[in-house]
């Protein structure tokens, strides 16, 4: 390939990548989290590396060196804000350098050597990048001092007077700079990404081993199962060796040998074999956990595994080939050839491991798109409305053209529209010249107007066709958007069986430890849940299970005495409830001793003895979630390995979940957990209360009830201020535990410390809290009831804006902020503390004065709306008198700005209707019209207009008049705002 061709290839291939570097640099600069910072740096490094490859292959060595150094700096520089800033600064210089060089090469159509200035810049850049990557700062050495056998980067080029041709034929040697680590070191270093990938894979393999071990419990010594387990252990050993996790590799090796011994021993290994298998898997898990936490390896793990293996050989049969202890370390150097996995790849193998945080980012973007979708729907409706108006304006224009045609003088030329009366030539001759000219001009104007009307009609028709096409595209796009959103959510979902497996193992080991016989039944293990929730749910569930087995299930002797089967029953039942997963963990043990629980709560200082005596059984059961409350002494040594029930509840709260407990003496105890399937999307009800919109997660609301008069009754009890009577025994609730037809009710506004504007409230939301139903009273439920909430915005809220009763925020299509309320916190407050008296509540903030503009001209409406909104008014618009009357009912304005000539109901008719209205709105009317005559002004005044302006009217004049009217407004106008 010739020089020119190489130059062209370099510029062509590097061009796009260099430009991409700009956006990567932008991402580095704007990164606001450590994760984003790392990600943006890794993007930059990848691009730099690609450019380096291109540059190297084209012989542009200086660009290759600088991009390689950049890649290294991006990868190895510390994750501090200072380093990030420094990297961004150097990266920008690198981009500029690359652009300059590309420009020169492109122009000269040859791979030219960098100029002296460029070399100096290059040297400085590479030095700086090296420093950022952790190298010692480069010491500037005089050229003459450098050893000749170790040419520095600029050695061949630094001497002035070296002809460029020489430089080109002998490209500079650049490898001496501290750009790349020594090759041996590079081999020794296991990249972090590889370690992370392996840790994930190893966990999957161990999980699979656990699954097989549980199968083995049912069918001990099954040869197929043992072989499958051995294959997995072998794979684990090989991979662990490759990434130099030697203890793990050694334990895997011992396990492999153990499995082989068990296979040979066959049925004689029996139950002992299963126990040894489970123990060995436990050791593998510990070894992996130590690697994951970067802890120092525990040598006893390998020893224990070796002892188990040795026992199996003694117990099981012939001595297998003597294992070489160094075997694992041999593999760890990658010398051992691991048997290929002979399983053919299946669909399940075609998976890609993705960092959950990347999925989160994707989800955040999808959610933003979803929110944009609602905004877009609003814009689309607006376009349709404008189109309709345009149609009306066009009809008016057509009508005007018709009228003008009727007024047209007799035609004087063939150019006039057909149908216009022809004028006899004699008459034409008799016309004066000016008249003829005027007639001619009128003719021409009419023609132009007709053409214009025809053009607009055609445009309108085309626009409609395009809009309808656009509408179809948008609808398809929306459907696709929903699917993408759904897919992304699903991507994060994992079946509960991962947790279930851990629970099974824990149950088995714990029951063995305690010498209890239990049957652990599980239903719904395929129920899927968000990965993050699943991870965080594991510990709370383990704790509940430990409690059930340790404290709940009695000893065999006790059970016999109580007339129960010796085998205790523990169960886990998971199923979907709307957008949530409900998980029940129960046991048929001794149940909770309420008296002891009260006593424990008193001892822990949570309440006084006399108060404790008055607690209902439900309230008493709730005490077990308080910190430091335990009815168990010695047995806590087992339960105490985990977290307390107070922490269980806290953990669930963090997951936006709830926990409830029921128990009957001698019959057992049941914990019911509810967690959302995904934290990403919350379906909400958009309700209004005290003039403000709120979002209530759909999952909390069992149903909404429109309230009739008298359905809400005050009780006079501060902690239970109202009762809602449901009209009849409710079918919806008849199958549940709730047969109540009277529910305690709380005005949402009161719970939020606001005064309710609407009296009485219009709608009751029936919500469940701690197995009880409550009614939240609100002023209304909006039509856009199913908004999609922005993902985890509560986290993004600034710390000073976070409130316990607010779990996040979302926005409506028109940009209104809705607080997503945390229903459990709200109801806890309601049921635990008396509400503040309404007089102490804060009044709602005043609204801006509301102005209604009534004009049939879209442009007038728009201009006025903008100007008045800018002047601080809350502005709404109406197209004619009918629209205006409807708007007046919906949201009475304080001032109306009214045109006279409008379709359907004109300004005067509107004024008459307003005057005749029995209620009267208190609104003041300002006429704004093109009619300037005194007659019109007088008539408007008679009909009650407060002011009269002729278009065009300066906005300052208009606002001054509005201010004046507002100041002198009757009381009614203010109170209705």
């Amino acid at each position, binding site marked *: 390939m010739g020089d020119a061709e190489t130059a062209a290839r370099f510029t062509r291939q590097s061009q796009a990548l260099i430009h991409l570097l700009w956006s990567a640099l932008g991402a580095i600069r704007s990164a*606001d989290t450590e994760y984003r910072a790392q990600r943006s740096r890794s993007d930059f490094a990848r691009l730099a590396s690609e450019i380096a490859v291109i540059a190297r292959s084209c012989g542009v060595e200086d660009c290759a060196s600088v991009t390689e150094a950049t890649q290294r700096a991006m990868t190895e520089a510390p994750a501090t804000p200072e380093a990030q800033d420094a990297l961004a600064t150097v990266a920008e210089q690198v981009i500029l350098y690359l652009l300059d060089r590309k420009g020169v090469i492109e122009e000269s159509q040859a791979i030219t050597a960098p100029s002296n200035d460029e070399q100096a810049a290059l040297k400085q850049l590479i030095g700086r990048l090296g420093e950022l990557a952790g190298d010692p700062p480069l010491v500037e050495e005089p050229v003459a001092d450098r050893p000749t056998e170790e040419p520095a980067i600029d050695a061949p080029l630094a001497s002035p007077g070296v002809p460029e041709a020489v430089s080109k034929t002998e490209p500079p040697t650049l490898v001496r700079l501290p750009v790349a680590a020594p090759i041996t070191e590079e081999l020794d270093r296991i990249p972090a990404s590889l370690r992370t990938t392996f840790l994930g894979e190893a966990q999957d393999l161990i999980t699979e081993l656990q699954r097989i071990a549980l199968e083995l419990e049912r069918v001990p010594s099954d040869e197929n199962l043992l072989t499958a387990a051995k294959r997995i252990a072998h794979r684990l050993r090989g991979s662990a060796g490759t990434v130099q996790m030697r203890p793990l590799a050694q334990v895997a090796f011992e396990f492999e040998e153990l499995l082989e011994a068990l296979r040979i021993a066959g049925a004689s290994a029996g139950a002992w074999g299963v126990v040894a298998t489970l123990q060995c898997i436990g050791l593998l898990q510990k070894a992996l956990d130590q690697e994951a936490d970067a802890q120092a390896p525990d040598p006893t793990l390998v020893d224990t595994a070796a002892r188990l293996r040795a026992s199996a050989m003694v117990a099981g049969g012939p001595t297998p080939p003597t294992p070489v202890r160094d075997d694992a370390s041999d593999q760890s150097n990658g010398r051992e050839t691991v048997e290929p996995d002979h399983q053919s790849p299946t669909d399940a193998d075609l998976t890609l491991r993705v960092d959950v945080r990347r999925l989160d980012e994707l989800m955040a973007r999808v959610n933003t798109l979803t929110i944009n979708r609602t905004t877009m729907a609003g814009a689309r409706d607006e376009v349709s409305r404008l189109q309709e108006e345009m149609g009306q304006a066009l009809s008016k224009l057509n009508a005007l053209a018709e009228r003008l045609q009727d007024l047209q003088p007799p035609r004087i030329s063939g150019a006039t529209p057909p149908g216009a009366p022809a004028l006899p030539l004699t008459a034409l001759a008799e016309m004066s010249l000016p008249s003829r000219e005027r007639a001619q001009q009128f003719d021409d104007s009419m023609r132009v107007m007709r053409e214009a009307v025809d053009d607009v009609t055609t445009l309108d028709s085309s626009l409609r066709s395009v809009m309808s096409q656009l509408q179809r595209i948008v609808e398809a796009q929306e459907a696709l958007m929903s699917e993408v959103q759904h897919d992304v959510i699903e991507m994060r979902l994992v079946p509960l069986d991962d947790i279930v497996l851990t629970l099974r193992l824990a149950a088995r080991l714990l029951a063995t430890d305690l010498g209890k016989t239990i049957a652990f039944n599980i239903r719904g293990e395929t129920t899927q849940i968000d990965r993050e929730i699943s991870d965080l749910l594991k510990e709370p569930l383990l704790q509940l299970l430990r409690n059930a087995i340790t404290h709940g299930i009695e000893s065999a002797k006790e059970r016999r005495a109580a007339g129960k089967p010796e085998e205790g029953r523990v169960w886990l039942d998971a199923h979907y409830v709307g957008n949530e997963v409900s998980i029940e963990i129960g046991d048929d043990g001794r149940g909770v001793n309420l008296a002891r629980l009260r006593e424990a709560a008193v001892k822990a200082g949570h309440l006084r003895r006399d108060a404790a005596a008055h607690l209902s059984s439900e309230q008493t059961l709730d005490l077990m979630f308080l910190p430091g409350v335990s009815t168990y002494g010695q047995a806590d040594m087992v339960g105490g390995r985990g977290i307390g029930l107070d922490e269980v509840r806290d953990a669930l709260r963090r997951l936006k979940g709830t926990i409830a407990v029921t128990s009957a003496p001698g019959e057992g105890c049941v914990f019911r957990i509810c967690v959302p399937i995904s934290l990403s999307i919350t379906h909400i009800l958009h309700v209004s209360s005290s003039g*403000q*919109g709120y979002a209530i997660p759909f999952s909390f609301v069992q149903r909404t009830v429109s309230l009739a008069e008298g359905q809400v009754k005050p009780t006079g009890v501060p902690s239970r201020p109202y009762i809602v009577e449901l009209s009849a025994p409710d079918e919806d609730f008849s199958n549940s535990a709730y047969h109540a037809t009277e529910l305690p009710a709380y005005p949402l506004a009161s719970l*939020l*410390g*606001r005064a309710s504007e609407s009296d009485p409230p219009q709608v009751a939301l029936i919500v469940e809290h701690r197995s009880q139903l409550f009614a939240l009273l609100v002023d209304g439920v909006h039509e856009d009831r199913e908004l999609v909430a922005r993902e985890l*915005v509560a986290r*993004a*809220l*600034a*710390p*000073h*804006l*976070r*409130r*316990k*009763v*607010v779990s996040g*925020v979302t*926005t409506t299509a028109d*940009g*209104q*902020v*809705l*607080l997503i309320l945390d229903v459990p916190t709200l109801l806890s407050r309601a049921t635990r503390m008396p509400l503040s008296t309404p007089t102490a509540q*804060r*009044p*709602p*903030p*005043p*609204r*801006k*004065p509301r102005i209604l503009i009534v004009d049939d001209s879209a442009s007038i409406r728009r201009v006025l709306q903008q100007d008045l*909104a*800018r*002047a*601080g*008014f809350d502005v709404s618009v109406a197209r004619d008198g009918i629209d205006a009357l409807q708007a007046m009912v919906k949201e009475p304005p304080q001032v109306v700005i009214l045109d006279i000539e409008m379709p359907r109901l004109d300004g005067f008719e509107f004024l008459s209707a307003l005057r005749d209205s029995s209620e009267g709105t208190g609104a003041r009317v300002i006429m704004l019209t093109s009619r300037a005559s005194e007659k019109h002004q007088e008539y408007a005044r008679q009909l009650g207009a407060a002011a009269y302006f002729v278009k065009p009217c300066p906005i300052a004049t208009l606002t001054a008049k509005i201010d004046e009217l507002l100041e002198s407004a009757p009381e009614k106008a203010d109170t209705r705002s």
Partner: protein
Amino acid sequence: MMHSSTMPSEYSPEFLTFSCDGVACAAPLAAIREALSSVPVIASLPDSPAWFLGVFQLRTEIVGAADMRPLLTAYAGVGNASSTYDTYSALTGRERAIVVGTGVRSLALLVESIGDILTLRPHEILSDLVEHPAFGAIAPRFRLGLLAPEVHQTRFALVALDTLLTDTINALTNSEVASDG
């Protein structure tokens, strides 16, 4: 008392003027992120002090809005004094807002009106003057000096916006704790 972080004469000769509690105020333009000629609909945030009006959406950001008058005069209990202030009876709904701070430390402060941008020479900035009738009821903590533009009859109280912002954010962060306690 001087507050060096907002001493403006060296680095920013431009000031935005505004009116708050009837006092002509000014702040370095650099300390103000944005001036809003009208305030969007504010969603009231529960468990907040009376002077905190709630949150609104400013482009993609959720920003808190506070009435600057009780804050600046320390009626709100922010700063040194403590008293109650009937915020809502004083609000007309036609206030303007100035947005200060960045990122999670952002806040919109409602003022009565927003005036011109003044470009001043150093001798027009009396940064050592913190006692003058022009300061009105502004708490001493928030006084940085007085602006005396030669071409202007009005004297403007130079306000320590960053101190005000810090105090306000601290008060808001603590208000949730207080309400729960």
